């Protein structure tokens, strides 16, 4: 469903993402791991069509992001990293606007908005102004706009940041329930989250792909995800030496 082939993203002389290749089949929930500044958000931004790749091909549902951006965007629900929202709108007003933008037929809008509001636990907040909501609820609004219109692909950039433990459990359960029908790419810093939710895992470090495979199973003796992560990150540093990639410092 998501195909990334030798994709490179440069910011001036810096290679934020360096020739990475991976494929995520339909219905799979994939965890996207890496240390800070590894290029996770940049990769997600390229897949969603927010920033173009410098080199390489990105395809979603067999549509090339560069040549058919609209077809790709119709199929993606995206939760950006810092959850930007229109502060002055109410939750239901905002979702109504997103439903219009996503061209959900007028007679299905009310029902669809009701569905995502309920699913994200926003029922009590529907009439509140977004700017007055707490971080956890803002996160849910961000998630709700991504889910609106039931897109087959979901790109979620750190969806559980800023939530309380109960909300984290709820969101994880929700994402897990999305698998099968939806293809999900989920970035996170919390390793147990990947073990709990994801079917497979991709680890990138300093813009390079260092692991792409199944989530290791502790019982089968292949070691924990944490060990795998540490090994992958350390191995890459030793063979590549010093490289300057700092995603966080550069605004696209």
């Amino acid at each position, binding site marked *: 469903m998501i195909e990334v082939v030798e994709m490179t993203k440069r910011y001036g002389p810096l290679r934020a993402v360096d020739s990475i290749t991976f494929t995520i089949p339909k219905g799979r929930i994939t965890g996207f791991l890496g240390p800070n500044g590894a290029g996770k958000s940049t990769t997600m931004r390229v897949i969603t069509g927010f920033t173009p790749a410098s080199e390489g091909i990105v395809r979603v549902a067999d549509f090339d992001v560069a040549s058919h951006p*609209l077809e790709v*965007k119709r199929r993606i629900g995206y939760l950006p990293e810092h959850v*930007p*929202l229109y502060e*002055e*709108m109410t939750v239901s007003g905002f979702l109504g*606007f997103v439903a219009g933008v*996503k061209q959900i037929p007028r007679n299905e809008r009310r029902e669809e908005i009701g569905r995502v509001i309920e699913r994200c636990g926003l029922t009590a907040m529907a009439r509140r102004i977004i700017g007055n909501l707490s971080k956890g609820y803002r996160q849910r609004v961000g998630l709700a706009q991504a889910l609106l219109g039931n897109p087959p692909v979901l790109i979620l950039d750190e969806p559980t940041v800023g939530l309380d433990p109960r909300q984290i459990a709820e969101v994880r359960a929700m994402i897990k329930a999305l698998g099968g029908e939806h293809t999900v790419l989920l970035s996170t810093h919390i390793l147990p989250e990947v073990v709990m939710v994801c079917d497979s895992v991709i680890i990138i470090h300093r813009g390079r792909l260092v692991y792409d495979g199944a989530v290791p199973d502790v019982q089968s003796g292949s070691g924990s995800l944490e060990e795998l992560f540490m090994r992958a990150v350390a191995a890459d540093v030793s063979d590549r030496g010093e490289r300057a990639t700092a995603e966080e410092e550069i605004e696209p």
Partner: protein
Amino acid sequence: MNRIWTVCRREFISYFQTPVGYVALGVYALICGLAFVLSLFMYSKVSIQPPAYGYTSIPNFGEALISPYLVFCGILFMFLSPLITMRLLAEERNRGTLELLLTWPLTDRDIVFGKYLAAVGMLLLMMPVLALHLFLASWFRPLEPAAIALGVATVVLMGLALLSLGMFISAISRSQVVAGTLTFGVNLVMYIAGNVGEKLPQRNPAPEGWPEALRRVIGGVWELFRGLLTQLPLDAHARDLTLGVLRPHDIAYYLLFAAFFLFLTFRALESRHWRGK
């Protein structure tokens, strides 16, 4: 078309979810009203005793009152338009919502036209004030309805051009304040240039004693410079239009001005595709 409308509606409503819309409309109505009342008083004083004010007879109502008033309303919009345009794209970029906007199934056309139309909506909301004033004026001295319509349309044309310029500046700025200040500065410079241009002497500035060829070159450059200063500013083309003199090149000037900066706004938004490649 539906998506343009969706973007436009959100943008337009959000003018009134923040104080911006009310402030812009209120200030515009207040200052236009003051200007109208003051110019009406002035005109009535002049018409009672024309010689005291240097007139030989009672000055023409349209020329002395209506046209300057409408040009003033257009110029006033020059100073209020940054309030309307500064947020259009700079705020999206600053808040990060541009990331949402550009990853939703929208084209650049939906975004640019949607936002421009919302700003134009604000402009149109200001026009009933002018129409009311002109209607009141026609109570004193009959005005042709067509002249009233053309007068308001002239201010709208000026507004279309100004909003387009403002949106372009908003598209290249990272913060609202920068966009607003820059737009204000550009408008002010344009206004000053127009005033300076009118006061520049027509004759060749090169001294008589200089060689003929050199004088001709300097004269040509001077003429071009003077022409730019008098023709380029936004209020220059409004004077005849507000008098009811309909000339295609004045209208074309405003429409081309607006189209040009809309075009640049598209390019500015598109720059994400090639910047940092």
